[in-house]
């Protein structure tokens, strides 16, 4: 039983948290691709930028002596999301909209977004340096230990307060997004434009408005994902830049342009990465008792070493592209 609890701690909880972060990032990428038809590389910087905005707000809250019952990072999240949405709109207006107006090709926009990535990352380094920050310098990170001795485990089920909140917040956002896309007039217009942009224009849909709404949603969710990642580990200038590739993999595996696909892809890659680096000996150790001496489990039985975690995302991506090129949810082929 101890082994199973360990497995839940190491794989189920970690995988779920990582999957949530990937999913929230991938939703933004997939929505932007669906509406504007380009791969928005700088999404990582919206995530990191959003996390830094949340961090500044949280620091300000602490400085003003505002104590909050849940981690300050979550209290300031809505404000940070609004600010990041404004940042996303500004980036679009400043860099991508002029290119679109000239009829630039998607690859030009992709290169422009790499430029934005370098610029935003440089700006963050300019103001914050290269060091790491923690949201929990001034407040404790509450950790819940659930006693599992009733099922015969000597190990407790461990989950931190930010992790619980993260899963809840992701769930709420996904449900809200679903309702927006299927019930509201603008959400349907967004799906219409992703489906057939020319026909959306012909129908009289205000496409410029749809583009703005897309940036607002993508920016807000990016801020949420970035802040969560920073709450789970630490905040640093290359926070999300390091995971932008698995996030892209999640969006592509799910089917580009498909919001639900991005959620599925994010969770799939999150769990796959966690499972791949998990030391299976920890779970299978009781087998040593029944296995013959020459077949004892080695002390470490992980599929890949932790440093190679990223390769898992690519393996899944390659397999998906070979077997089902448009992704799980039949997205657009670019």
């Amino acid at each position: 039983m101890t082994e199973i609890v360990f497995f839940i701690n190491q794989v189920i909880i970690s995988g779920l948290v990582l999957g949530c972060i990937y999913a929230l990032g991938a939703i933004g990428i997939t929505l932007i691709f669906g509406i504007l038809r380009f791969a928005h590389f700088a999404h990582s910087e919206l995530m990191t930028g959003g996390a830094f905005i949340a961090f500044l707000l949280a620091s300000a809250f602490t400085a003003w002596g505002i104590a909050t019952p849940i981690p300050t990072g979550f209290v300031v999240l809505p404000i940070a999301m609004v600010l990041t949405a404004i940042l996303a709109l500004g980036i679009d207006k400043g860099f991508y909209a002029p290119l679109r107006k000239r009829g630039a090709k998607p690859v030009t926009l992709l290169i422009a977004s790499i430029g934005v990535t370098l610029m935003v990352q440089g700006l963050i380094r300019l103001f914050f340096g290269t060091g790491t920050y923690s949201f929990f310098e001034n407040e404790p990170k509450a950790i819940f230990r659930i006693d599992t001795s009733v099922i015969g485990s000597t190990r407790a089920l461990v989950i931190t307060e930010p992790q619980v909140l993260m899963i809840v917040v992701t769930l709420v956002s996904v449900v809200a997004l679903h309702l927006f896309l299927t019930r509201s007039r603008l959400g349907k217009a967004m799906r219409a434009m992703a489906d057939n942009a020319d026909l959306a224009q012909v129908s009289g849909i205000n496409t410029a408005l749809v583009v703005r709404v897309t940036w607002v949603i993508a920016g807000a969710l990016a801020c949420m994902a970035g802040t969560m990642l920073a709450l789970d580990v630490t905040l640093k200038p290359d926070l999300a830049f390091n995971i932008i590739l698995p996030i892209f993999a999640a969006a592509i595996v799910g089917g580009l342009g498909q919001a639900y696909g991005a959620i599925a892809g994010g969770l799939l890659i999150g769990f796959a990465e966690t499972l791949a680096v998990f030391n299976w000996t920890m779970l299978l150790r009781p087998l040593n008792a029944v296995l013959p001496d020459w077949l004892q489990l080695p002390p470490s039985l992980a599929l890949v070493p932790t440093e190679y975690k990223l390769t898992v995302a690519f393996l899944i991506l390659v397999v998906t592209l070979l077997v089902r090129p448009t992704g799980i949810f039949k997205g657009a082929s670019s």
Partner: protein
Amino acid sequence: MALIELKHVVGGYGGAPILNGVDIAIDKSDIGVIVGPNGAGKSTTLKAIFGLLQVTGGTIEFGGENIVNSLPDRLVPKGLSFVPQEKNVFTAMSVEENLEMGAFTRRDDFSDTMAWVYEMFPVLAEKRRQPAGELSGGQRQMVAMGRALMSKPTLLMLDEPSAGLSPRYVIEIFETIARVNKEGVGILMVEQNARQALAFASKGFVLAGGQNRFTGTGPELIADPEVAKSFLGG
């Protein structure tokens, strides 16, 4: 006063003009049909009216108002609707959502219009929850027309509504268009099935090289030996 009047319209996609002076006038009671050889500028004329390409000369008046180079999100609320030839439904959205998108510019209650569209195309009412991409070619054409009618247009423009349909559906689509016209919607359409379309047109326009070659009522044009010889295949 004509519902829509094009006077000597010149326009194209930035290079050499494709339209070199097109004249068209349609009343609310009319079914106008544009025919002509490939590359004559038939579809381009519709796109020019709908602001989808640059008009560099001439005037386009709709309901007495100059609408040259206005974009669809301004034109649809004014009562203009357009059914493109290809890719004219939102394939991943349900039939009902397709219709809702047609009413995007309306902020009033459009349930009566939707009921009217379903009454006209009963088969769509049955399939209202199905993705439009799963329907047959003829049914998709109905969804496309239904979508365009949701904005309650006074002029409905259709680009080759019979393209790719079986002969049985062609007749059905033409009959539907005539019915829509009777309900008070002016029609302006481009057709490849020239003879069949002109037969029920109240106004016909034969274009070639981006200019009017012949203009008259449908039966007049069919009876004209020159039109028949050059454009209707003898």
